[in-house]
């Protein structure tokens, strides 16, 4: 086994038991349980890759894998979380390696940095105003979000844009719930830093209110 292969993540969530579906049942599951999430999946793929062609490929690969391994999916369970986990793992295995993202940073390195800085955590209420955020347009907020390292971007997308619970996020990301909470906390602080810098550069008033 090559080094690259050994680093790859198991893409399909393990099921406690596999179910043998006939063709009509597979068709029905695909249409009723998988397809309703395709817009959310595409949006997630686009926010991860920040490229329309890559998002197209990632969503297509994910749905083809989901169908190929449909016996691992238990009908009536959380299809959205199951699909998001496959997409996230496909992204890590297939796309992240060739990502042109300039801010690509080793996650462990980032987390260590933020852990060490937590004691002197910045108080954002003194330098970012509610009114400033309310005045921003969507593209400005999206630019700040896109500038975050992908692991931090991911938790904000899953929680704040897609509305997953911490428990669902833990399953999608293969991390404990405590790590979901701490990663979200750091991601949001980083986002507020970016919003602050952006607001200052655009001439918004960022003085304390």
């Amino acid at each position, binding site marked *: 086994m090559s080094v690259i292969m050994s680093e790859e993540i198991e893409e399909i969530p393990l099921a406690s038991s596999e179910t043998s579906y006939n063709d009509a049942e597979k*068709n029905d599951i*695909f*249409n009723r349980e998988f*397809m309703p999430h*395709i*817009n959310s*999946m*595409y*949006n997630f793929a*686009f*926010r991860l890759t920040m490229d329309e062609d890559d*998002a*197209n490929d990632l*969503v*297509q690969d994910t*749905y*083809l894998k989901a*169908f190929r391994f449909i016996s691992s999916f238990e009908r009536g369970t959380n299809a959205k979380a199951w699909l998001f986990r496959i997409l996230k793992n496909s992204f890590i295995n297939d796309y992240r390696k060739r990502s042109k993202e300039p801010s690509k940073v080793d996650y462990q390195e980032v987390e260590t940095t933020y852990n060490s800085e*937590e004691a002197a*955590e910045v*108080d*954002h*209420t003194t330098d*970012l105003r*509610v009114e400033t*955020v*309310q005045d*921003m*347009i*969507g*593209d400005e*907020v*999206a630019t700040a*979000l896109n500038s975050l390292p992908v692991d931090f971007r991911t938790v*904000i997308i899953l*929680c*704040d*844009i897609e509305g997953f*619970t*911490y428990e669902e996020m833990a399953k999608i990301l293969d991390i404990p719930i405590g790590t979901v*909470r701490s990663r*979200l*906390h750091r991601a*949001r602080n980083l*986002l*507020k830093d970016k*919003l602050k810098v952006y607001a200052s550069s655009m001439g918004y008033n960022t003085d304390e209110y």
Partner: protein
Amino acid sequence: MVLDMHASASTGENKEYKKVYCEHHTECLKKIQAVLDGEASEAEKEHFRENMDDCLHCIKMYHLEKCVKEALQAKVDKRLCPDNLIATIKSKLNIIS
């Protein structure tokens, strides 16, 4: 999840608060985020209710967190999957609609 405690998190100009600066703001912020995410434990909710009455710093953090979360939910453009991609996927898998 809608919490009625949100209503108490106001910044009434005439009110005098016991605290203007919170020395525990990092821990308080984590609890505030859990409340806004609908994931707070009973103890975290209780702590939140108490602080929303007494601590101006925590009230400001609450409003900023809520505002950023709402901006992400409401303002960031949600990309829709192109119809031709849906058609391609269904075609490759012989899915009948």
